[in-house]
């Protein structure tokens, strides 16, 4: 009787878990895809390939192209610092890294606004030097970097802890300097943690709305990323544009995850 009841409770849990996911995650996505292609491929395609749509796509990819490499380099360096060089400042770094997780993106956007605005700390000096941060691409890049800082660090730290230092020490006894040890031993050993962090960072940068919305000014064809494009189309009662861009975002995110899985399977084989 015991095993029967435990198998029943196992099925119960499974149903609950899958039902929860289906209702809250899958149903809205499925509905989005359905709505988008309700009247065929043409309407969403036209909306995305409009000049503003294409510009938004390009700008979103530009955010990824700048923010992801920077946060990857910073993230791996930071993880190495946290795990391999124990000192008192680590606790501070550790908490600060988590700030973007804890603070609402809108608040992040607002704080950038306060820093770089015309009455902000740095704004006036930068304006004098001819550098525009707010309502232009640099500000949006800063916001994207800010919100996506923690991912690579958080994914890399546990992997670094797990591999330990013996392999690195062995490499140094064989004559490898610090740089060679990093490239030939450390990085290959943590690459899946880093890759996973990169995927999460990419997804976060692509989807970022709140912070970027505040610092960009959201000018169509100039400072509008895909999420902002979706918002504007939605506000203007242009369902084709809103759904089309949403689906595009979802597909970009899915393909990133898929690429990760394919690479991982290749590695395991």
């Amino acid at each position, binding site marked *: 009787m015991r095993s029967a009841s435990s198998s029943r409770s196992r099925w119960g849990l499974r149903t609950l878990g899958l039902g929860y996911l289906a209702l809250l995650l899958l149903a809205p996505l499925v509905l989005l895809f359905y709505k988008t292609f309700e009247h065929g491929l043409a309407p969403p395609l036209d909306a995305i390939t409009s000049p503003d749509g294409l510009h938004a796509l390009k700008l979103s990819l530009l955010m990824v192209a700048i923010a992801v490499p920077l946060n990857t380099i910073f993230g791996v360096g930071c993880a190495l610092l946290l795990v391999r060089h124990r000192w008192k400042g680590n606790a501070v770094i550790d908490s600060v890294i988590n700030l973007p997780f804890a603070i609402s993106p809108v608040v992040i956007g607002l704080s950038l606004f306060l820093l770089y605005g015309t009455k902000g700390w740095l704004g006036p000096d930068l304006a004098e030097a001819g550098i525009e941060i707010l309502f232009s691409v640099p500000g949006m890049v800063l916001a994207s970097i800010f919100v996506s800082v923690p991912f690579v660090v958080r994914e890399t730290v546990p992997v670094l802890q797990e591999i330990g230092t*013996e392999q690195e020490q062995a490499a140094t*006894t064989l*004559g490898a300097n610090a740089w060679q040890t990093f490239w030939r031993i450390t990085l290959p050993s943590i690459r899946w943690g880093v890759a996973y962090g990169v995927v999460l960072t990419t997804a976060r940068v692509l989807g970022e709305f709140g912070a970027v919305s505040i610092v960009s000014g959201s000018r169509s064809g100039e400072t509008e990323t895909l999420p902002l494009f979706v918002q504007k189309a939605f506000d203007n009662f242009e369902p084709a544009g809103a759904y089309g861009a949403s689906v595009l975002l979802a597909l970009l995110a899915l393909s990133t995850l898929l690429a990760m899985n394919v690479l991982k399977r290749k590695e395991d084989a």
Partner: protein
Amino acid sequence: MGITVEGASKRFGDFQALNDVSIEVPNGSLTALLGPSGSGKSTLLRAIAGLESLDGGRVLIDGEDVSAKPVQKREVGFVFQHYAAFKHMTVFENVGFGLKIRKWDKAKVADRVHELLQLVQLNGLADRYPSQLSGGQRQRMALARALAVEPQVLLLDEPFGALDAKVRKDLRTWLRHLHEEMHVTTIFVTHDQEEAMDVAGQLVVMNEGRVEQSGTADELYENPANEFVMSFVGEVNRLGEDYVRPHDMEVVLEADERTQEGMVQRIVALGFEIRVEFVLADGAEIWAQLTRLELQRLELREGQIAYLRPIQTKSFNGSSPSSDHGASTPPVAL
């Protein structure tokens, strides 16, 4: 290449890992650093390799002070207890790592790696990954990797500690043969006195960050400098102020002026060797090591009274008249 350590000291927080340690390892020898865990033996080995910096003292390899030399430049081969295999590389790439760092050309690397794989009996496994090897194979790969760069000295940190008893025995015999062929000055760390005596020509016994005694296995066994060494390199009983090895206890059935009365508490047969445990009149527990033949002759049974006569005892406070060997024997320099 001889190795000299002079006055080495190292602290980790409140823990004094090395306390003014000096050792001398002659060129071409195979030396064991023997001691319980926490005795500083691994720290000393890592300090020789340059993996640990010393708070005080210095390390000389072949007469040259290498204390300030980084580990990369010391030309030591180091073998770790848990192999430290490069998991993302094949056996071939692991063994060739040091050569690749030294920018050898590919054909030469391949020749050398195959030569080494032959030596450690791993030929045919060059394309495997470490995860596809057994523990013993991994450790032989690690050894080949360390030997590939022709190190001046070979340092092994509890190299067989993670292996099971049978593989351990095979590997230590094999290490001894390898050393006879290669003649590279080798130091290996172990907490197993049998392993140390089996493999090494010279032993350094360490305890609580200090060297207790150095010498050959025979010297340490026959003339231990103190109680610690005596009990660490072999079994020992305590009779008041005296120490006596179980095989130096004679069991007889009739009392005389040199015997002590004891009751047989337990008889344990360990193959050829029989361990007979006694309780003395004062409550002290000691045991004697007998052969099967001796046991049969004495017809001992548990609960029976018998008499114990120590053939040879040792005392380390120097005042006991019953000691045959004093503790004043100076530690034998290596």
